[in-house]
């Protein structure tokens, strides 16, 4: 299955309101409540970009990034500042780090740039498989 954006966020209100905004903007959105769910979605979907919270009950954001070998672009959206060691651990897999609360207009701008970067031909071919 093809998904434009996966939202990984343990707070239901934050997750659902963000999903509404992205859907309204035209994105195909999947939601995950923690890292384990996120990995399950990533295993079954072709994902364009991931919005990743760091602090979650089961399998936190850093562990999710660790588990992925060739992940889609990841945007970290967190209430917490990244420590230098976290930054080093996640490396280039993370394309942006945004601090909560992110003004939705700003988030959409960033996503537009990132998701556009995903090669268009790949998505249909992935869907074809």
């Amino acid at each position: 299955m093809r998904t434009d954006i996966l939202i990984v966020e343990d707070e239901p209100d934050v997750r659902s309101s963000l999903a509404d905004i992205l859907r309204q903007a035209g994105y195909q959105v999947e939601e995950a409540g923690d890292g384990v769910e996120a990995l399950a979605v990533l295993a079954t979907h072709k994902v364009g970009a991931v919005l990743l919270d760091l602090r979650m009950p089961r399998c936190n954001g850093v562990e999710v990034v660790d588990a992925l070998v060739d992940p889609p672009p990841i945007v970290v959206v967190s209430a917490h500042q990244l420590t230098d060691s976290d930054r080093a651990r996640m490396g280039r897999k993370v394309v942006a780090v945004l601090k909560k609360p992110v003004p939705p207009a700003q988030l959409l701008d960033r996503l537009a740039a990132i998701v556009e970067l995903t090669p268009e031909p790949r998505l249909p071919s992935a869907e074809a498989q």
Partner: protein
Amino acid sequence: MRRASRVAPLTVVVAAVIAAASVAGFYSFKNSADQQERTLLESETSQAALYVGTVLSEVGSILDPLASVVSLTNGSPSAFTAHARTVGGGLLNLVLAERHGTTYQVQSAVGTRYSVGQTLSAAISATLARAGATLTPAPVRFNGKTTTALFALGPPLVPSGLAVFTEFSFSPFIATAVTAAKPFELLKAAVYGAPKANEANLLVATVPAGDLPLHSGEVMALSTVGNAKWAVVAEARSPLIGAFARQAQYIILGLGLFVALLVGATIEVLDRRQRYAARLVEERTADLRTTLSDLQTAQEALIRGERLTALGEMASVIGHELRNPLAAVTNALYLLRAKLGDPADPNLEKHLSMVERETAKASTLAEDLTAFVRPREPQKSAVELPGLVTEVVEATPAPANVVLEVETEPLSVQADRRQLAEVLTNLVANAYAAVNGGGTVRVATHRRGQEVEMSVEDTGPGIDADLSDRVFEPFFTTKHDGTGLGLAIVRRLVEANGGRVTLEDGLDDHGARVVVRLPVGVLESS
């Protein structure tokens, strides 16, 4: 450290007491020795006088038989001469004299000095007139070379008007068996043929002529010779009480002074050690006091730091916890705005924009609270101040009615660039807020000695001098919408970078001026 070189009073007192005691001992012993010496000398001299008396009285045993002959022969000169020759062997002058008026005339004589018919001198005549049954000596006459002694007997041993006498002369300084024997061997002595020690009467001496008269500590005793008293003067040849007893006083004095010196030196050494120890204790105590005071200062700083850290942790947690609700509200507002339009219906718009405004303010608070957590360890590098200032004022543009003046010297400091930028941004934003109604904000960097001053001043209302310290405390604010964390964060960041921050009077004697002072960077010149 001052070295005390004066002698301790105790040393002086103790040494003086011992020295005084030894001097007193010296004199006491000397007196006692002197007294003993004198007693012995007196005893020896008396013995010598007695001896002299006994020896000279022997002359009587020569004259006595002659007197008997004169008496028995009723003054026959020939009988006297015959007998006198047998007695004196012709060596002694032996004379029989008869009174004629006031003087005496020689009747018979043996020896060389007197001849028959000779009239005797007034002095001899006077002696003969006094002569009786007891041996009567004439005063001895010493002419500087020889001495002459005369002894006479008179009535009732001889008939009235007659007298017999013997006279002999000799050198008083020639040692004889008498003067070489005890008691004279211990003494320097002189015997005078008179009751007083006149040189003209010297009879005999055991010392050379030059040593007379005797002085130092001499003793006089009177010797009975016939019916006269003759003087015997003597002093000791060597101490009679013994050389050791004579020297003992000096030994006492010497030992005493030595002991005084020894005890004094010992006391002085002990005293100096004690003084040294006391000084050491004083110094160590002062060191300890300084250390204690340093520790207290450090402890206070630590407590303040820990309180701030705890406060920072709590603020940070609250800030984080606010972020999720704020994120949900922000998202919901975005959806509402999309639904209701921008601007929305005037009745709704008023409330909607208020919620947006307040949400933004709450987001800022959450941001400040999060930032108040203890700053990370600064990563220092050379920060060029002009570049930093330009960057910050460009990122934080002045409001329309505020004039911004920038005045920078080409300086650099060793600091964490991001933290220093945060400090300056904070200060500039504060200054803009302070001159909200219009005014001037000046950002300047200058060098002052070994420090670099980075100041942000404004023409705003300023802050009371008595609040100038409190403005750096967390949650203290003079602004209506301030969180009171901005300057607290500034101070923590500045101090973490080895600097300090103060609030002073601003432009035109009012307004505020915040000065950040940092050490000059080592790479300044490059």
